[in-house]
C-alpha cells in the first residue's frame, strides 16, 4: 500500500479511538453518577485514546520508511552472484540501481543480464510484501495502543493531566528542534568536510594561495590536479564585504542618527518604512540589478575616465550589497542610539553644546560598542550573502584587493561546485562542504561576538 494510504488509515484509526475513548468514559461511570464522577472531561479520555493510537504507530511508520530502502538493498545485494559481490562498492551500487530502475519500469531489459532480471522480480516481490507488512504493522500498533488506553479508562484516571503531559513533551520537542537543526548543520557539513580533508590536507586548504577546483572526475581524464587554497576566496569575500560596508555604514548610521535625533515624528514614521522596503527586496532582485544595471554602468564610468574595470567587478557587487544592508545597519544603530539614556543628552545640551556636538562627543562614544556590534552583524550578513555575488561577482579566484577587478567569494564557489551533477566521492564536491563549514563558523563567531558586545552594552545602561 502507498504510504499516503497507510497514513490516512492511521488518521482514521485515531479518530475512531477518540470516539471510543469518549464513549468508554461514559460507560465506566454508569451507576456512579454519570460524567460528574469522572476526573476529567469525557473528551480528554477521547484525546488520550487517540494519542495512544496515533503516536506509537506514527513512530513505527517513520522508522519503517527510513529503514526500508537500505534493508531491501542489503537483502538484494546478499543474493547477488558471487562475482558481483567481489566488485567495488561503486560498481555494486550501479548494478543495484540498474535492478531497481528496471523493477520500477523505468528502463527496459536490454541493459541487464539474467541474474539482474531475476533480482528485479525478487525486488518487486520484496517491495510489495514490505508495503503490506508496513500497513499491517502500523494498524496493529495503532489498534493495540488504542486498546491499552481504552482499557485503562476509569473514573479516577487523570486523563487531562495525562494528555497535557504528552502535549508538553510535544511543545518541548518543537523548541528542541532548533538545537537539532544546528546539530544537523554542524554534523552534515563537518562529516563531508572531514572526507574532503582526507583528500586535501587541511593546511593546504587554509593557507593555499590558489583556488582552481577543476579536477579529473575519472582517473583517465586529462585535467589539472586541482588546487584548493582558501585564501583568495577569503580575500575576495572580504573585499566585497568591505565595499559593502563603505556604503552601508555611513548611510545607515547617518540616517539612523538623523531619524532618531533630528527628524519630526511624522517624517520618521514615513521615512523608516520606506527605507525598510530595501530590506524586503529579495536578494535575487539585487543580483539582477547588480549584474545588468550597476556593473555595466560602473564599467562604462571607468572607461570614460580611462580605467579598466572588469565587467564583474567587486565594486558593483559590493555596492549593491551595501544598498541591501543599509536598512539593517539603520535599524540596529537606531535601537542602539535610542538605548542611550536621555540624561546624557540633556546634560550635554544643558552645558550649551549644539545637537551635533552632543551626538559626536557624547552619544556616539557612549553608543560605540553597540554600533560596533551592529556592524559585525552586518559584516556576517555580507559574508553569507549569496545571490548578489553569484549573479554579479566573478568565478575565477584572483588574489587581489583592487575593487575594480573580478573576484570570487566563498558562497559563489559553494554554488558553482554544487549546482549540476554531483559526485560525492570527489574532492571537488566535498570542497563545497569544507567552504560551508568555514562560512558557518566565521558567521557564527561574528554573531556570537556581536551579540555579546551588544548585550554588554545594554546592561551598561540598564
Amino acid at each position, binding site marked *: 500500500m502507498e504510504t499516503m494510504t497507510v497514513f490516512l488509515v492511521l488518521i482514521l484509526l485515531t479518530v475512531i479511538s477518540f470516539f471510543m475513548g469518549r464513549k468508554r468514559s461514559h460507560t465506566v461511570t454508569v451507576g456512579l453518577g454519570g460524567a460528574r464522577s469522572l476526573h476529567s472531561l469525557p473528551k480528554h479520555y477521547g484525546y488520550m485514546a487517540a494519542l495512544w493510537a496515533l503516536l506509537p504507530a506514527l513512530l513505527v511508520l517513520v522508522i519503517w520508511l527510513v529503514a526500508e*530502502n537500505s534493508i531491501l538493498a542489503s537483502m538484494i545485494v546478499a543474493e547477488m552472484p558471487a562475482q558481483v559481490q567481489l566488485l567495488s562498492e561503486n560498481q555494486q551500487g550501479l548494478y543495484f540501481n540498474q535492478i531497481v530502475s528496471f523493477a520500477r519500469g523505468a528502463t527496459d531489459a536490454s541493459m541487464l543480464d539474467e541474474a539482474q532480471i531475476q533480482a528485479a522480480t525478487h525486488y518487486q516481490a520484496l517491495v510489495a510484501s514490505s508495503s503490506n507488512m508496513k500497513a499491517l504493522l502500523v494498524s496493529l500498533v495503532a489498534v493495540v495502543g488504542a486498546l491499552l488506553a481504552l482499557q485503562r479508562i476509569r473514573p479516577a484516571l487523570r486523563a487531562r493531566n495525562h494528555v497535557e503531559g504528552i502535549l508538553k513533551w510535544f511543545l518541548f520537542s518543537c523548541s528542541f528542534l*532548533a538545537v537539532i537543526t*544546528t546539530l544537523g548543520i554542524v554534523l552534515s557539513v563537518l562529516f563531508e568536510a572531514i572526507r574532503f580533508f582526507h583528500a586535501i590536507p587541511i593546511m593546504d586548504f587554509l593557507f593555499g594561495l590558489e583556488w582552481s577546483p577543476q579536477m579529473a572526475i575519472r582517473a583517465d581524464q586529462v585535467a589539472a590536479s586541482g588546487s584548493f587554497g582558501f585564501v583568495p576566496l577569503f580575500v575576495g569575500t572580504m573585499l566585497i564585504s568591505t565595499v559593502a560596508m563603505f556604503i552601508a555604514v555611513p548611510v545607515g548610521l547617518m540616517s539612523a542618527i538623523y531619524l532618531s535625533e533630528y527628524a519630526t515624528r511624522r517624517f520618521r514614521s514615513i521615512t523608516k518604512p520606506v527605507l525598510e*522596503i530595501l530590506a524586503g527586496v529579495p536578494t535575487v532582485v539585487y543580483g539582477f540589478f547588480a549584474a*545588468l544595471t550597476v556593473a555595466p554602468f560602473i564599467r562604462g564610468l571607468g572607461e570614460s575616465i580611462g580605467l579598466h574595470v572588469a565587467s564583474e567587478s567587486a565594486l558593483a557587487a559590493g555596492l549593491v550589497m551595501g544598498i541591501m544592508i543599509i536598512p539593517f545597519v539603520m535599524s540596529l544603530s537606531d535601537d542602539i542610539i535610542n538605548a542611550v539614556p536621555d540624561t546624557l543628552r540633556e546634560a550635554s545640551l544643558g552645558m550649551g553644546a549644539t545637537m*551635533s556636538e552632543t551626538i559626536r562627543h557624547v552619544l556616539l562614544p557612549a553608543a560605540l560598542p553597540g554600533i560596533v556590534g551592529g556592524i559585525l552583524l552586518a559584516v556576517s550578513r555580507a559574508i553569507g550573502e549569496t545571490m548578489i555575488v553569484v549573479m554579479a561577482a566573478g568565478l575565477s579566484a584572483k588574489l587581489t584587493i583592487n575593487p575594480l577587478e573580478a573576484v570570487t567569494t566563498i558562497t559563489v564557489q559553494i554554488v558553482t561546485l554544487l*549546482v549540476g551533477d554531483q559526485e560525492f566521492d570527489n574532492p571537488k564536491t566535498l570542497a563545497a562542504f569544507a567552504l560551508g563549514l568555514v562560512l558557518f563558523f566565521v558567521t557564527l563567531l561574528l554573531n556570537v561576538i556581536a551579540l555579546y558586545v551588544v548585550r554588554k552594552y545594554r546592561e551598561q545602561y540598564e
Partner: protein
Amino acid sequence: MNNMSNQHSSKTTAAIRASLKKRYRRERRFRWYGRLAVLTGFVFLFILLADIISKGTPAFTQHYIQVSVNLDAASLDLPSDPSREQLYSADYLGAIKSSLRAMFPEVTGRKEKRLLYRLVSVGAEYDLRDMVLENPELLGHTSEIWLRAHAEAGSYLKGQVGSDSLEADRKVKDLQIVWLDQLEAEGRTESRFNTTFFTQGDSREPEMAGIRVALYGSFFTLLVTFAIAFPIGVSAAVYLEEFAPRNRLTDLIEININNLAAVPSIVFGLLGLAVFINFFELPRSAPLVGGIVLSLMTLPTIIITSRASIQAVSPSIRQAALGVGASKLQTVLHHVLPVAMPGILTGSIIGMAQALGESAPLLMIGMVAFIMDVPHGVTDPATVLPVQIFLWADSPERGFTEKTSAAIMVLMGFLILMNALAVYLRKRFELK
C-alpha cells in the same frame, strides 16, 4: 578682584561668541549629512524600482503580425479528409513559411528567407495548430491570421531597438526592419496583453516563456513551509514563553534559535542536500525538500515574533483563567493564544514573505532545473519564482531581460501583498 573676574568672563564670552557662528555652521552641515544619508537611501530605492519597472513593463505586451495564411491541404501536407491526429501533426510551419514568402515575393536568397521566417515566433506553428484544431473550418481557405511575433522583431516593434544603431550590434537586421516597417504601415502589426507570460512554463524562446510553472512551484513550496513552520514555530514559542523552566537546556535552546536566525541561508541549503537528499533520499528538485529547508530557515523568525506577541498578552487574562480552575495548558490554548494570534500571524506572514523571496538554499537542492510542466504535487520536480528569475537573468537574449524584470515585478507584487496583509493585521491588533 571682581572687576578682573568680570573681565576674564567677558573674554570667555567673547571667545564663545566668536566661535558660535562656526559651531552653528557645523551643526547645519551635520544636519545636512543626515538628510543626505536618508536621501541616498531613497535614491537607491528609486533607481532600483525604476530600473526594474522600466525594463519589465514591455514584457506584459506581446506583438502579433497579421499574415494571410493559406491553409489548403497541399500547403499543410494533408490528405483530403484528415483525421484529428493528421491535423495535429500537419506541416503548419511550412504553411507559415510559404505564406510569408507569398507576402514578400521579392525575397529569394536563402539567407534572406531565413531572416523572413524569423519575423514570427518559433511557437507560431503551435498557435496555428491549436487554432485549426479548434476551428476546422479554417481549412482550405486563405485567412488573415495574427501570428505571434519573434522576440527580436517584437523588441523592434516595441521601440527598444532602433534602426539608428549599428546592424552588427543588434539581433534584428536591416532587412527585417524594412519588412516590419512595411507591415506596420499596412496595419498588420498589433500589440496585445501578454497572456502567455502567465499561462506557460519556461521556454528557450523569450516570447514563449512564462511564469506559471514557477508560480505553482512557489505555491507548493510555501505550502510545505507553512505547514511545517507554523505549527512547530508556534508550539516552540508557547513552550519557551509559558512552560520552559529557567535552566541550562532552555538557555541552549534560546541561544540556538538566535544563532539560527543569523546563519547564512546557503548553509541551510547544504543541510538540505546532505541530510534530506543524500541521507533520507527524498526526491531532488521537489517542493517537498525546498519547503522543509525553507521552514527550518523561517522557524527562528516565527518563533521570535510569536514569543513577542505571546509575551504582550496581559497577565490578567492568564490569572483570570487560572483563577477559575483552568490548567496551564488550557489557559494558553483557550485564552492566551487566541489573543496573541494576530501578532503570531503577522510574524508568520513576514516569515513566509522571506521564504518566498529566498533562492540560494533552493539552488543547492536542485530546484534549478529547466521545467516546462506544471507540478501536480509536492514531490514533482519544480522551480520557484526567484529561481526562475535567476535562470532567466543568466540568459543573454534581450527578450529574457524584460521577462526577468517582469517576473521580478510579479514577485515583488506578491511580497507587497503579503506585507500589506501583515501591516493590516498588526493595525487591527493594535486597535484592540
